[in-house]
């Protein structure tokens, strides 16, 4: 065996995931780090969509503009619902840290319901716009709008299915290092979508109705 010194427990073996005696803890924290990096890439994805939207915002081609289409009560309601769901997902994580499985699942249910309400409102908004003749193929502005807002909505919908799957796993296994990491990851995801929505709210809706 050609290595200088086979490392003993004293030289930081615990800090390395591939040391023989690692628990799940190291692997789980590595997965959380990987998810953080994934969120960086997702930021880039939304950033690109925002750039496209900003470039094409004025290209309405004689069709309806944001000022005519966006309805203030609707998107303000969406905003409050999503922000609240972010708060309740935070409460779920706090319950998890106290190892209270039922409380944790309870808060996740509240989060899923709020998320579903948000998606429902968004679909409703889209349907109303299409009924008014503002479809994805009406103008460059509307294509960019539907793609940007729709991508966020798709992210939220995926998050809902994911969260329900995790609730089943919690019911089956309780709070273990693995389920704990999974809940940590989805709460990161959920807060991230919230941050993206703040930008959407500002750049698309508020600046749209100005």
């Amino acid at each position, binding site marked *: 065996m050609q290595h*200088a010194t*086979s490392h003993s427990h004293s030289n930081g073996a615990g800090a390395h995931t591939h040391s023989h005696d690692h628990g799940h803890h190291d692997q789980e924290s590595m997965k959380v*780090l990987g998810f953080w990096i994934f969120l960086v890439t997702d930021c880039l994805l939304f950033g690109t969509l925002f750039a*496209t939207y900003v470039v094409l915002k004025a290209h309405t081609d004689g069709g309806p503009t944001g000022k005519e289409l966006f309805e203030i009560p609707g998107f303000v309601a969406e905003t409050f619902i999503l922000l609240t769901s972010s708060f309740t997902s935070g409460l779920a994580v706090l319950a998890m840290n106290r190892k209270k499985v039922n409380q944790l699942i309870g808060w996740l249910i509240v989060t899923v319901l709020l998320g579903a309400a948000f998606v429902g409102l968004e679909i409703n908004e889209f349907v109303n716009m299409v009924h008014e003749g503002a479809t994805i193929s009406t103008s460059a502005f509307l294509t*960019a709008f539907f793609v940007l807002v729709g991508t966020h909505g798709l992210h939220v919908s995926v998050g809902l299915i994911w969260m329900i799957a995790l609730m089943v796993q919690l019911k089956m296994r309780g709070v273990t290092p693995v389920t704990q990491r999974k809940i940590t990851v989805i709460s990161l995801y959920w807060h991230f979508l919230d941050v993206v929505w703040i930008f959407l709210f500002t750049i698309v809706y508020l600046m749209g109705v100005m």
Partner: protein
Amino acid sequence: MYASIKSFASSFFVTGDPLIYGADVSIGLTTVAILFVLFYFKKWGWLWREWLTTVDHKKIGMMYLIASLLMLFRGGVDALLMRAQLAMPNVHFLQAEHYNEVFTTHGTIMILFMAMPMMFGLFNMVVPLQIGARDVAYPYLNAVSFWLFFFGAMLFNISFVIGGSPDAGWLSYPPLSEMSHSPGVGQNFYIWGIQISGIGSLATGINFIVTILKMRAPGMKLMKMPMFSWSVLSSSIIIIFAFPILTVTLALLFIDRFLGGHLFTMDGGGNPMMYVNLIWMWGHPEVYIVVLPAFGIFSEIVATFSRKRIFGYKSMVFALMSISILSFFTWVHHFFTMGAGADVNVFFAIATMAIGIPTGAKVFNWLFTMFRGRIRLEQPMLWTLAFIPCFVVGGATGVMLAVAPADYQYHNSYFLIAHFHQVLIGGVVFGYLAGIYYWWPKLFGFKLNERLGKWAFWLWNIGFYVCFMPQYALGFMGMTRRVYTYGWDLGWGPLNLVSTIGAFLMGIGFVFQVWQILYSVKYGERDTTGDPWNGRTLEWSIPSPPPMYNFAVVPYAGEQDSFWEEKERRDFAPAPPVPVAQLEAIHMPRNSGVPFIFSACWFVAGFGFVFDWLWMAILGMVGVGVTLLVRSFQYDTDYYVPVEEVIETEIAAGRAI
């Protein structure tokens, strides 16, 4: 009934071209031959257990390598078709539409389905061994990445015989790639083939960043890490910042084509130049993604074969990192002629030229490493020596192209073609080939035959200059890219004929390499020591090929080139075996069939989207969702290799007593 089947088949399959009928026959025969071998030798179970479900980074790397060599063949045939068509004026070997398809698939395949997988193959085969890890950070995700790439590449390649290839250039600029100008399915194949494999590339980028940051052997500080791992880190950082842009760009183009959007169309307020900006915001960093690992390979090889530590380690690291940042500020140099204005062009011209500074520093570092070194001209070193002058000339013509006013003359001429082929072949291809020759014995346990390799080397090199030097001149003579034929009156004939001869020389060089691999499997010099080149880094401290768990005892690497330092300390005597008492059970990930099935579902979905068959697309996407959920519910994903098995393996390798 018969008539409707016939009309469907004539639109579904590509018809009317004898070349493609020939391809149909060869694809059919190859498929039958593979199936026959698998059934006759009863290899289905072996294939599934050992390869399709594997999460071992070494096997995944080998599969990447095999796939990329196949794609190199396909892209190379495209290149030879083009050169045959251009060899003389007024040749009618290919029709105009067919020529468009050929140059489109050549560019796309060579960059995305040859260079990228060859790079990921080297990442996988080398990085964990080099940093003293037992696998990458996420072995399962690694398998997902590979199969996504594989099925994406397959989807793209199918377009050749089913439905028709894309023909709007390798980056598919709108409005040409929009429904208004390309109503066929070819563009959809382009979008989905790249999209599916692009997701895999992004995942690989994340995977290797975490691997390098978190899985290094104890004692290996970042500034003690081997150069190749540094280059992988810098390349992966570019990947995570660039690939999301590609994903979005392709998705937006698809929205335009599939849902009638107006993002990049000529009507409805669309802006085609938005697409060109977006695709190059990914596309320019992409060329640095592929070249930085090649730089890392050269650093390893130069140090090993000069018997010296790499010169200017810190400046090498700094250069890698500054190139990865600068690469994001140069994209407009691909369309200086768009008319963005002098101030914008000047910014991007200066940023482009600035990249030459760290790159030049690296070239001098390699030269200084060789200075007063004890150089051995083994195959990897030959390719490295060929790379340096080639890349310097290619870089110099790049700086010429970076001069925005002059670019109005060079833009889209054969001068540009010659430039980027010189940096991509002279830099990337030579680099990866050097890396393959260098690490081949480590992965496969035998060296590649020297004599055949020298033939391949000289054919490649002479062929390269004969092919591309005339193209610089042709560019100045006014020949633009993507013309499928030209008249006698232009005077381009002789130089084009020379160029074609060079291309075929490179083709013969590739044939020699295939022969070399096949010959060496049987007769190649076996590597019994695990250290055939007198190497300097950790990957040479274990047997060739490495055991499944790589390192029986995790090494301590407290200095740069730690394996070399340690060899010097024991005066190059054989390493003492390890007492069996030091060995322990090893924690490893389990194989999984899910990545393969998951990616196959993506393929089905992609195929459905290509042909607008919504039922098939939905079916595929449901499959994607179900496989993700199935994996989410799997908790038993790893196991321990029993200590008896470790002891047995190590004793058999003569490394433990």
